[in-house]
């Protein structure tokens, strides 16, 4: 056991976890921002921008994440970490957009009419009435999506980005006994579980509060 979890190995793994969380958090923040814009465009723009948002969302929602991870890594010449963030942001924005659209659509039509009747412009109605409510309603779903993003960063190992799973797999190469291998698998799964289960429990608490 001490051969698996000596100080060097633990530091090695934690480094991977740091990269996992960095990529996940930046991607989540960026995709919430772009997702909101896409959702508004898809719902309210009848022109070319609205059509762009629809096509973008449908393309990214119906193709695998791994395809984007690979394409961006091989076709866009940027540093591995940035290519990870870019692929996750592109992909997750589409999902965030659909979540946010669900939230916006759940705000009743009467509220738009009420706002317009009070002399609010379309922009003001969105900014002060609709978006704050939609956003609040979407928080639990956003958080569930955050869990998914944290889990899915492990796909980045496919292009050799050494996040938590990658570091674990590299470490695994230096072990030979089944006990060591299973211990390491347990540690990897356990670490993801602790982080994600905490968020999942948070989601549940928020949901019952609403």
């Amino acid at each position: 056991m001490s051969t698996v979890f000596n100080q060097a190995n633990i530091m090695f793994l934690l480094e991977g976890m740091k990269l996992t969380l960095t990529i996940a958090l930046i991607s989540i923040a960026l995709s919430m921002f772009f997702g909101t814009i896409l959702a508004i465009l898809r719902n309210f723009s009848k022109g070319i921008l609205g059509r762009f948002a629809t096509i973008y969302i449908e393309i990214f929602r119906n193709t695998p994440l791994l395809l984007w991870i690979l394409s961006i890594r091989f076709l866009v010449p940027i540093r591995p970490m940035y290519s990870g963030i870019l692929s996750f942001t592109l992909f997750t924005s589409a999902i965030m957009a659909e979540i946010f659209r669900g939230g916006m659509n759940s705000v009743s039509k009467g509220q738009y009419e009420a706002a317009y009747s009070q002399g609010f412009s379309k922009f003001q109605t969105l900014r002060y009435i609709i978006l704050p409510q939609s956003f609040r309603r979407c928080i639990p779903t956003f958080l569930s999506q955050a869990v998914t993003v944290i889990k899915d960063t492990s796909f980045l190992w496919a292009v050799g980005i050494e996040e938590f799973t990658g570091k674990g797999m590299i470490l695994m190469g230096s072990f030979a006994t089944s006990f060591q291998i299973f211990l390491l698998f347990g540690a990897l799964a356990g670490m993801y579980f602790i982080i994600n289960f905490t968020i999942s429990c948070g989601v549940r608490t928020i949901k019952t509060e609403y």
Partner: protein
Amino acid sequence: MNGPFSIFKWEAVFKDFSIFLEGFLTTLEVSILGLILALILGVIFGVLSTGKIKVFKIISRIYVEVIQNTPLVIQVFFLFNGLPYLKIVLPVFLIGVLGVGVYHGAYISEVVRTGITSIAKGQFEAAKSQGFSHIQTMRYIILPQTVKIIIPPLANQLVNLIKNTSILSMIAGGDLMYTADSWSSANMYYGPAYVVTGILYFLLCYPLAIFSRKLELKEKNKVSINTEDSIQGQVIATEGGL
């Protein structure tokens, strides 16, 4: 001209299109078998988690939480790299089916559970008062109604399942993603190979997404769902990500 999308690279892709088609078929097979496994697990654990027997409830809770909160990649790597140490060597195809089946089984179990609990308690009581056993109540009263509610989120899960079969490319599984990746790493024609792969996945997933949305709208028009439910539906539809 030698950009990433040059004409001759496209020609090469279409010359070898049968290779891509083979990968596509593998993806299709893994998806179908994975779906069957996921449905079986999902219905069993979903029903158990709404039942009265505490042990089963705890077991299904553990199944759902453990699977939903750990990455599919780790689960599949465990089957691929871990199990051989127990002298269990599974073929990659089977690992793919088991991997996505067990993973999405957990999500489907939650979909089924939410579907069952959304049916009013009065119905359970009414059935009981008519002398139905628990299994009979489930079989004749609750599940037929649940099916209607859960088909849209199930179709969504199927889309996610199909997309997640691409995990096979990380263990040389011969699926569509792997085919594209290995084909293009041999000649560096990444551009067209990925575009064609994307289109093939899209052709598989988009009809399902449309189908799911149509049904959802139909259900929504039939019964006026309050906002709480529609958010809930959204949660079910989007969870499982990818």
